[in-house]
């Protein structure tokens, strides 16, 4: 067993606002992260996700609002009194110290007895599998190794919360996939409350229990990766998480039910209690492309259009189909010998009603 012993603490953020000079960067952030949870901040660059993480660690301008860790208000504390561990995007390993000295740094600052420091540093290096590199300098290590040392340096002090600022962005693609698995395993083993900042939805999906999507300093939606993908709260979340077809229009009454009438003239029956201007969203893989004379199942919708583009992506073929003035993307699972719809062919698109999502404008 490991000698690293962490006691998980929850993180609560209450009406947090933060400005750089005149720029309002974080706008009314409210967030509650459970003890031991792996939580992701996902958003495009400039969305404020790193700023929020840094505010939890105590860096950057002083925010308004409350930040609680384990129920204790910490917003007024300097960074060195917060006991939240942060792994920096650049790793920030000090080049003038060996790996061992780097990892021991936090324990030395905490006045831990020298004997205990040795065993705890060994345990942390063992945990990331780099004990034999302890006497090296950071410059002699590869990117992945540096990343692991940075992680060891942070967890060795047994922080109450682990903050990861785009930790995988400096690694190459294969290593990134491996490291995100290792991160998840380590987090599960330590039961450590972890906040992971990323702009890559795949990273957030694969690692986190829940995530918050940020845009323009505002939290757009909080939930499990799958819930957010299937039921996005708004257009931004829908398009940021994967590819989405979005039709503009309005939901109106039609023969006892609801019908979505697109601006460009498509009429699609939907299950919706709401009425008024809305967007209709559905994912390319949920649409079935078929010959022009195919008919829809019960509970399905049939649209007809013309194939405009076709891309062969290996596992799927992605069609762009023009329906009036709208263009809809359709992913068709590729099977050997299956017919391919050529450009300018008339085709039917079959949409199951339960895969349609009505979004607020």
């Amino acid at each position, binding site marked *: 067993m490991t000698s690293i012993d962490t006691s998980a603490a929850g993180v609560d953020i209450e009406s947090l606002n933060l400005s750089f000079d005149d720029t309002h960067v974080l706008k009314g952030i409210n967030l509650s992260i459970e003890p031991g949870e792996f939580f992701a901040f996902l958003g495009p660059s400039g969305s404020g996700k790193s700023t929020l993480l840094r505010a939890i660690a*105590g860096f950057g301008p002083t925010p308004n609002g409350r930040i609680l860790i384990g129920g204790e208000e910490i917003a007024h504390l300097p960074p060195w*009194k917060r006991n939240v561990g942060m792994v920096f995007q650049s790793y*920030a390993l*000090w080049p003038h110290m060996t790996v061992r000295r780097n990892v021991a740094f936090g324990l030395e600052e905490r006045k831990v007895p020298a004997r205990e420091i040795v065993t705890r540093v060994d345990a942390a290096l063992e945990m990331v599998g780099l004990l034999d590199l302890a006497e090296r300098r950071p410059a002699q290590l590869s990117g992945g190794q540096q990343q692991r040392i940075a992680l060891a340096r942070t967890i060795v*002090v047994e922080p109450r919360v682990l903050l990861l600022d785009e930790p995988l962005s400096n690694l190459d693609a294969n290593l990134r996939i491996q490291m995100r698995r290792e991160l998840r395993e380590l987090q599960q083993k330590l039961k450590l409350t972890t906040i992971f900042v990323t702009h890559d939805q795949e990273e957030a999906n694969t690692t986190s229990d829940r995530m918050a999507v940020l845009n323009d300093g505002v939290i757009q939606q909080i939930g499990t990766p799958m819930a957010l993908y299937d039921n996005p709260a708004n257009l931004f979340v829908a398009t940021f998480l994967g590819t989405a077809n979005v039709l503009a229009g309005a939901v109106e009454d039609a023969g006892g039910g609801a019908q979505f009438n697109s601006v460009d003239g498509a009429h699609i029956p939907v299950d919706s209690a709401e009425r008024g201007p809305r967007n209709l969203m559905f994912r390319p893989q949920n649409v079935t492309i078929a010959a022009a004379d195919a008919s829809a199942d019960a509970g399905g919708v049939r649209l007809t259009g013309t194939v405009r583009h076709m891309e062969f992506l290996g596992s799927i073929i992605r069609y762009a189909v023009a329906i009036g003035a709208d263009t809809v993307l359709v992913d068709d699972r590729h099977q050997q010998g299956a017919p391919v719809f050529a450009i300018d062919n008339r085709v039917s698109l079959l949409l199951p009603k339960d895969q349609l999502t009505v979004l607020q404008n």
Partner: protein
Amino acid sequence: MLIQTLGIIPLIMPPFVGAVAMALLFGANGSVNLLLDDWFGFNIPFMEGLNGVIFVESIHYFPFILINLSAALNNIDRAMEESAQNLGAYGVRLFRRIVFPLAMPGYVAGAALVFIKVFDDLGTPLLLNINNMLAPQAYLRITSIGISDPMGYVISVILVAFSLLALWVSLLALRGKDYSTVQKGGGGLMRRDLRTWEKVGCYAVVILILLLVLSPHLGLLLLSFGTVWSFSVLPDAYTFGHYVTVFSEASGYITNTLLYAGLAAFFDVIIGTAIAYIVWRTGLPGRKWLDYGATAALAVPGVVIGIGYLRTYHGFNVPIIDQPLASWWVIIVVALTIRRLPYALRACMAALQQVSIMLEEAAENLGATKGRTVWRVVVPLMSGGILAGFVTSFATASVELSATLMLVAVDSDAPLAYGIYEFMQSAAGRGPGAALGVIGVVFVGLGTYFSHRIIERSRASRESTAIVAEGATA
């Protein structure tokens, strides 16, 4: 920003010019001691003997350390500091364990450079009448006993040895410790918000230092406008007479300086560009040694270059004009070129490194020969750096005294620094000497300012190059 700019000003004036002004301000009968005597009844012997040299040189070269240190601090990634804070370090411990060690190489390099420069300085000790230092000894031996006196050469060898040692120390400090850790995004340490009283304290210290650093200039300015200035806090009366004297009698010094320093800087950037290209873009065997050789000129004290040329070309008569090469003015240009080559070379190398090799390959791919590529693509892209090299070489060459003092044969061939030195020798000449010094400072200052403006402007129009260069390294 303001603090940095004002801190650099002293560099554009030779230290010995400041020495005279400082003697008047801080000497036994200088302004400060007169004031102290009036108010508190005691004196501080700032300028007595070796103290004077130490005092003048440390004030003069303070900006050198400042520049090196601020560059070193600028190159530290903010995350380096933040990660230490995150792990519990703060205040003095944070500085001692993280910031200071990371800035150390810059610090040592700056200190070694200052050591070499002070070691080499001939004018200051001579003007302050401190002759028992190595550089003045070498000079006095050669000029008083004669060119055949062996002691001068022994001292020269010792000078070179010590300078090389200092250069070696600075290289050792920097080797394998390229701590410039800035990643894309946030560079430089975080700005600190100070409390009001801390701000007041900081400004007080900074202003005191600035006053000290600028005191030679203030003294020089007063001296150049003052009529008689002795045993009084300020000059008795003010006049433009000294400037009139300078322009009527000593304009030759100014034109000579423009000619010598201009030629030297011109040759420096040409040689610098050539060496930079050979070192970075060709596989020529021994190209590294070309770099080392040119840089080593940094470690050869000016006095030694002067003595060396004097001795070597003493008996060598230039055919057409029929006089010894050692006393012809061209030898001054040659000496200055060699002296200032390292500065130009550094600037050219830095400029060339910024030019992506892909830009050259693109030109060659479109049919330009190597030579045409260098001329049409590389040199234009390097122009900012080349100009910077030219100005640095020009500015430092125009205030050079150590090497030229040896080589000036007739007064009509003498440059500005020599003129100032000559004037300063006599009490009556101090006014005109100071006026000449002010003119020199203004000249070099303006040159530096304009080249800075030009470089800024060309940088703005060249953002696209930076993008290409970035792509090449990514």
